């Protein structure tokens, strides 16, 4: 079938402001938006800018706004989208070229929540013990691929770019609820700050956007509760 892609383009070296451009490509129903973007870059317009790597939803490179919703281009099939598809860069991060945004603010928020295990005890000779139940407690938030689909779908983030955002909270949650970690309090302090969890208005955009099916809003709620009741 023939599909039309309407893509928001912007090259700061040449364009004063973004503009829309339409492309037509031959595609199968089972093809993904990423396949079409490749067809365009390879055979029609070599200057089209977008990121990608794994092509099956695991590396987090190609989150973008597709038909008004944040998705990974490599997981968005024409069978589900129809034959007229609009593609735009993620909202709320500076556009560097076409569909490529500056990820640095996103990673800065991630780094701010101490996203690594903190445990100051001497480790045992073998593994630390953890029961399957303790392990299950934070399973959901270990799935995050840092694609930014959640954070950049959040209206609270759009109006306040200093909000740490859902992805950073998800990654804090992953450690706060890990029985082996000892720094829950430090992280909860960070998340209780002005730009932390209280900016969340429970809009659920993040949960809808997450390509990994993470219950993002639920994770944020759990962190809020941990702050309120000062216990994990």
């Amino acid at each position, binding site marked *: 079938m023939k599909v039309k892609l309407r893509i928001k383009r912007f090259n700061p070296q040449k364009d004063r402001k973004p503009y829309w451009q339409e492309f037509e490509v031959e595609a199968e129903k089972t093809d993904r938006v990423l396949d079409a973007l490749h067809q365009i870059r390879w055979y029609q317009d070599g200057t089209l800018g977008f990121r990608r*790597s794994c092509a*099956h939803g695991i*590396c987090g490179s190609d989150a973008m706004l597709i038909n008004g919703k944040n998705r990974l281009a490599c997981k968005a099939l024409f069978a589900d989208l129809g034959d007229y598809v609009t593609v735009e860069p993620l909202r709320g991060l500076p556009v560097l070229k076409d569909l490529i945004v500056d990820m640095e603010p996103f990673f800065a928020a*991630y780094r701010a929540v101490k996203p*690594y295990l903190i445990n100051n005890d001497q480790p045992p000779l073998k593994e630390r013990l953890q*029961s399957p139940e303790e392990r299950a407690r934070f399973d959901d938030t270990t799935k995050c*691929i840092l694609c930014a689909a959640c954070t950049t779908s959040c209206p609270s983030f759009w109006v306040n770019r200093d909000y740490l955002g859902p992805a950073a909270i998800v990654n804090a949650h992953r450690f706060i609820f890990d029985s082996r970690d000892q720094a829950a309090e430090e992280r909860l302090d960070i998340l209780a700050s002005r730009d932390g969890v209280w900016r969340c208005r429970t809009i659920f955009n993040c949960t809808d956007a997450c390509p990994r099916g993470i219950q993002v809003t639920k994770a944020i709620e759990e962190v809020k509760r941990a702050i309120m009741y000062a216990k994990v």
Partner: protein
Amino acid sequence: MKYHTYDAVVVGAGGAGLRAAIELTDVASVAVVTKLYPTRSHTGAAQGGVCAALGNTEEDHWEWHMFDTVKGGDYLVDQDAAEVMCREAIDEIYELEHMGLPFNRTPEGLIDQRRFGGHTRNFGEGPVRRACYAADRTGHMILQTMYQQSVKHDVHFYNEFHVFDLILSEDGRAAGVVAYELATGEIHIFHAKAVLFATGGFGRAFRVTSNAQTLTGDGMAVVYRRGIPLEDMEFYQFHPTGMYKMGILLSEAARGEGAILRNGLGERFMERYAPTLLDLAPRDMVTRAIYQEIREGRGAEGKDYVYLDLRHLGKQVIDEKLPDITDFVRTYFHIDPAKDLVPIQPTAHYAMGGIPTDIDGRVVVDEKNTPLPGLYAAGETACVSVHGANRLGTNSLLDILVFGRRAGAHMAKFVKENDLPPLPKDAGERVQAMLDSLLKANGHESVAKIRTDLQRDMMDLAGVYRTAEGLTKMQGILGELRERYQHIGLQDRGSLFNAELVDAVELGFLLDCSEALVSSALAREESRGGHYREDFPKRDDQRFLSHTLAYKRDNGQIELRYKPVVITRFQPKERKY
């Protein structure tokens, strides 16, 4: 051009590069130069597990693991390296756990372990539970954990910088790398005492592959162009279970949990090929068995695929232990593995060969294993060789960790004992000239078309089945593709995220890797592990119990040399499962 000076430069931020960087960062100044954001590296795609003889769920010993590795590699494995890997595996896994990796657990709270192809108890008696895992996203968890540790240790990254050249000093030491900054188009010279290549594989040389778009053999090609040999390039692994036509991997963990392969008649055909290990025989064997079924007309619907049957595992096992691959099948095939048979076909997966190194990650450049001072390699881009002619599942994640760490540790020592080599005056010139010509390229050939042709022909002529005739033909085709490559045209003349330019350079790298693969394969007149010659179907230890070294000479010719395999504990035997 911009200049930077560090003690050490690590090229690549997958599992191998990050593991090395973590080892180095606290003791030396280190730059990690990577063409992808670290968490985008393909280590994150690894699913099934990483093995170590912990013995958490049943008896196990590292000697058994070593034996399986050597036998799985069809005795081309360097046994000193395999011994180091299998022995150090145990502490490496505990260390990963201490770093926070969320392994699945046994009811007692230990790291849980599962079965995987070719891993056996007591030297081949039957399958053993050796693979440590985190659902079916073990690689994701390893990559995340490594990245978390790099944040903790404040590792210095240069993201979206493509390394296009290696700098060698006049006295024959590694002196740094030349990188292209994607965001600006600028050239950067990284001047350093030690350089590690950890740039991953080159699956994109083939039409159907489990590898990312970005796995184009950059590190291998860069050093190869500088006169350093590539080892055992003819050994390329095709994983039996890729999703039909797409190549996306469905982990061996599925079969580890009990899934079965079925042909078009519904038969469990592995009974005929590997009576003891059945569906968990090593990959090279299972892949050929699938093709054999297809060739004899027993493919599904008479076509070139068979089925993976997970239906009897039950929804709980599928959802809890294999959630990601279930999601792939649902998303891309719109079917449910708990109810439907999944169409699969072999997919180009893993390079056993690569840049030759010793057990400390030092790059060695001849049959006497002479190191090139300051140059290191680790991970899929390297060849230690622990995988020999065929890698066992779960041994690559182990390889990147053990040898990533060892390379990092050796570099730490090296940079303390050595001073900065002089930087040649013309360090960035080759890359500058290459970029200048690409930015002017206005020929009539298309990079995408050349690449598509390469991938199609490599799959057909240098894939699972090979003959002298086919490989010779492929050599001719590579010559033609190279000629066409001289006449490509590009549209993007800009300096801002010029992905078209990068695509063209990466195609050049793929051509180099393919050329080394084909020449090495043509000369190896035997069948061993992943290298199967229909015209020489038997293993020939008399002539070929040795590693191939392929050198690119200045006139473009390839010279092949051979170096002996290190054999310590296990003498070569016939391989049966």
